[in-house]
């Protein structure tokens, strides 16, 4: 599978992604799907400059990602697809039908969110969307870095994961 990780992470491109996952997975490209960033050259440059030279970062709106995802999935190199929130991942999953495993890598504290793991805080809407994704057959686990054990969605929602 050329896209090795479909990740929800509100920090987007950062150390855990570039180094923590990027190095063991031998990642050479990151697809960042975010409507606001896809419309801002400055934001794109900010995230592009953060990536090491051997890693390209491309930016897509949800709409363009739905068009281009098959091409990314057909690439021979290894990649990571990043979104900043559950709703965006839900739109991608529902729009493509080709995403079967989702990694919840980091949704941090904000008003209206409830702590589920150290690095996962969810709104009721997030939980509803995650349950809907799981019900449609998508495997969802929370895992911030490869060295930790993936926490199944049910444990995340029950707040019983570590």
């Amino acid at each position: 599978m050329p896209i090795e990780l479909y990740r929800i992470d509100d920090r987007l491109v950062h150390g855990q992604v570039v180094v923590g996952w990027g190095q063991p997975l031998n990642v050479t490209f990151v697809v960042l799907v975010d409507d606001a960033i896809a419309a801002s050259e400055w934001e794109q440059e900010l995230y592009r400059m953060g990536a090491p030279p051997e890693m390209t970062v491309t930016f897509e709106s949800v709409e363009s990602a739905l068009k281009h995802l098959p091409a990314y999935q057909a690439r021979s190199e290894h990649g990571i697809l990043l979104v900043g929130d559950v709703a965006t991942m839900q739109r991608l999953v529902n729009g493509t039908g080709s995403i079967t495993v989702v990694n919840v890598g980091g949704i941090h504290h904000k008003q209206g969110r409830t702590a589920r793991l150290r690095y996962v805080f969810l709104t009721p809407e997030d939980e509803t969307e995650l349950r809907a994704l799981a019900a449609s057959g998508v495997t969802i686990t929370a895992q911030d870095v490869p060295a930790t054990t993936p926490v199944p969605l049910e444990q995340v929602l029950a707040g019983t994961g570590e």
Partner: protein
Amino acid sequence: MWAVTSRTMTSRASTPAHGLLRRAIVAGHGDFAAGLISAVHQISGKGDAFRSVSNRDLSAVGLEEMLRAVVSANDAKIIFTDLPSGSCTIAARRLAREDPSMVVVTGVNLSALLAWVLGTESGVAACEHAVERGRGAMTVIPGSVATESGLAH
């Protein structure tokens, strides 16, 4: 939850020969910043020139807000960060966009911080000097076996 180390001021921030107050933020993963500042203080006694920020358990937005608050409270114009690809660097660059006089130095290490806090230059020149010292401090010292065999992997 908030992962900023609020260090109590026990002495005035470092004042170099030219008389300007020298103060900067160090931001990074985990306890990187607090640890580095502790080491600077142990060696130079000038740890109070720095304030630490950790990105631990913070969203990108939360980290940016935290960094902005610490920068503002300390009237700092320089932010040292750990990883070029890290969230602290991203947040620092967002602040630098708002304030063109802000300087961000990424990939910082102990030698660089010491060079900065003990140096006599100011502004960007002080940062460039620190980076030069930091780069120069990175050295491989192979063991005798590796030396004899030509240091394979």
